C-alpha cells in the first residue's frame, strides 16, 4: 500500500535532551494510525516535524511521496491538523475563524463551513466570539477547522482532550466516517489507549523519543491473551484440583491468584468443583489483555 506519510531516521533534541531519536513511521494510505506514548515521549515533537513546524536535527519526512523541505508549502493544502491546544483568534467568531482558514488554505467552498459546524455540533454557537467558548467547544472547533478543507491526511494531536464522553463518542464516529467514506488517512495521538484501540488500524508506540513498535492492530489483538482469573483461599490446593480436572494451561501467580489460559472452560463448572473440594472461591472473572496491557508490557520490556 502507498504510504501517505513516512519519516526516515527523524531526530530532534532540545539542549541535549533527545525528543525524537531515529523515528521511522510509515502511514499507509487510507489507514488510521494511532500514535501512543507517555507524556513527554516525543509525540507532539514528531507531529510538529511532520508539519514542518520544527526543523529536525536529522532525518526526513515524506508526505505523499514528496520530501518535505523548508520550501514545501503547497503540499500542506492536502493536510489538516490539530497541534497542541486549540488556538484561535479570540475576538472573532467561529464562522469568521473558519472563513479565514478557508482563505489561507485557498479553499473556495464556504458552504463547507456549515457542514463542518454541524458535524461538531457547533452550528448554534457559530456567531459567538471564541473567547466565550469552553475548552471542549474550542477542541471541537479545532476538529472542524482541521477537516474543513477536505484534507487527504489528518494529523490530530490529542484531539479528544477536554471533550465529554458524548463528545468523544461523536468525534470517534466522525473520524471513522471520514476514514471510511472519504478515505482520509488519519494520524492520531492520544493518551486514552482504549480510544486509540477503538479507532486505529495501526499502532505506533513511542517512548523517550524512540519508536518502540509499529504494528497493525490485528497483530496486537492476536497477541492479546484471554484468560480466567481465580481468587481462592488456597492456590496450591486449587492448582492440584485443576490438574485433576485435566486443565494443564494455568499459572499460579501467588498464594491466592491463579490464571487459567483456557477461556472456554465453564465458570460454573469451575466454581462448583472448587467448592465441592473445599477450596474457598473469592472471585472468578474472564479477562482479555487490552492495548493498555500490551502498552505497559512493552514499556516494562524496554
Amino acid at each position, binding site marked *: 500500500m502507498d504510504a501517505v506519510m513516512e519519516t526516515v531516521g527523524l531526530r530532534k533534541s532540545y539542549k541535549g535532551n533527545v525528543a525524537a531519536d531515529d523515528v521511522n513511521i510509515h502511514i499507509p494510505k487510507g489507514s488510521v494510525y494511532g500514535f501512543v506514548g507517555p507524556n513527554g515521549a516525543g509525540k507532539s515533537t514528531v507531529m*510538529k516535524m511532520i*508539519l514542518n513546524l520544527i526543523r529536525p536535527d536529522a532525518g526526513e519526512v515524506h508526505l505523499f511521496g514528496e520530501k518535505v523541505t523548508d520550501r514545501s508549502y503547497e503540499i*500542506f*493544502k492536502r493536510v489538516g491538523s490539530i497541534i497542541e491546544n486549540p*488556538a484561535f483568534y*479570540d475576538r472573532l467568531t467561529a464562522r469568521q475563524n473558519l472563513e479565514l*482558514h478557508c482563505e*489561507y*488554505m485557498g479553499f473556495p467552498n464556504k458552504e463547507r463551513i456549515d457542514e463542518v459546524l454541524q458535524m461538531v455540533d457547533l452550528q448554534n454557537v457559530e456567531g459567538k466570539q471564541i473567547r466565550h467558548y469552553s475548552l471542549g467547544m474550542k477542541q471541537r472547533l479545532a476538529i472542524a*477547522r482541521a477537516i474543513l478543507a477536505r484534507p487527504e491526511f489528518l494529523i490530530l494531536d490529542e484531539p479528544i482532550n477536554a471533550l465529554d464522553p458524548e463528545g468523544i463518542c461523536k468525534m470517534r464516529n466522525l473520524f471513522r466516517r471520514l476514514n471510511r467514506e472519504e478515505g482520509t488517512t488519519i494520524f492520531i495521538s492520544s493518551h486514552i489507549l482504549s480510544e486509540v484501540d477503538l479507532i486505529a488500524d495501526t499502532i505506533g508506540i513511542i517512548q523517550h523519543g524512540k519508536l518502540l513498535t509499529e504494528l497493525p492492530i490485528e497483530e496486537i489483538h492476536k497477541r492479546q491473551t484471554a484468560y480466567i482469573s481465580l481468587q481462592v483461599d488456597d492456590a496450591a490446593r486449587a492448582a492440584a484440583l485443576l490438574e485433576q480436572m485435566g486443565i494443564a494451561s494455568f499459572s499460579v501467580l501467588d498464594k491466592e491468584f491463579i490464571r487459567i489460559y483456557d477461556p472456554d472452560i465453564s465458570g460454573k463448572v469451575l466454581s462448583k468443583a472448587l467448592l465441592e473440594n473445599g477450596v474457598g472461591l473469592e472471585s472468578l472473572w474472564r479477562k482479555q489483555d487490552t492495548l493498555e496491557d500490551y502498552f505497559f508490557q512493552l514499556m516494562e520490556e524496554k
Partner: protein
Amino acid sequence: MAHLIRLELKKNGFARNMIFTAAAILFSMLFITVSLWDSMTDPEQAKDTFESTYLAIGLLMSFLFPVYSSVLTARLVIGEYDQRTITIMFSYPLNRTKLIAGKLIIIMVYTAISMTIGYICCCGYIVFTDRHFDMLEGTFRISMLQTWIPTAITATAVCTVLSLWPFIIGMIRKSVPAAIVTSWIVIVLRQVMITKNETNQESLPQILLATTVTFGMTFLIFKKKVPELY
C-alpha cells in the same frame, strides 16, 4: 502578498487603528492649542513661533505613532507566537516569510500614513488658528513649507524604518512587553541623536546607517527567529 495583507486587515479589524489615528491627531491639536493659549494669555511668556510649534508637532508625531506601531507589532506579530496561533498560520500552504512580511508592511505603511496625515492636520491647524485667532508670533509664509515638508518626510521615513525595531527585539525575546519598551527606547535615542544636529533632524549618513542596520537586523530575524515557534 496583497491577498495576505487583505486577510491580515480582515483578521485584525483595522477600524480601531483608524480611530486611534484620529484620536492621536486630535490629542496633538489639543496639546498645541493649550500650549499656544498659554503663551498667548500669559504676559510673561513670548508668543510661540511657527518654528517652535512645528518642532512640537514633530515631537508629537514621532512619539505617538511609533509607539502605537509597536502595539501593532505586538498584536500582529509577537501576539501570534504568544497566543500560539502561529502554529496554525505556519501549517498553511503559504510562504512563511511572506506571511510575516505582510504584517510588517501593514505596520510600516500604517506608521507612514498616520504620521503624514498627522503632520498635514496639525500644520494645517496652526496655520488656521493663526489666521483666525492670531495665536502665533509672525505670519505663515509659503516659504516655510520648504523646511516643513522635507523635515516631515525625513521624520516619517526614519520613524517608519525604526518601527521595525520593536519587531526585531520582540522576536528575539518573543515578548510583547519587550516590543513596546523597545519603541520607547528607540524614540528617546532618536531624539537624543537629532537634538545634537543643528537642523533638528537626521543627517543623510545617519539615515543610511540606521536604515542599513535596521534592515540587516530584520533580515537576520527572518532567517533565525521567524521560523522558531518558541
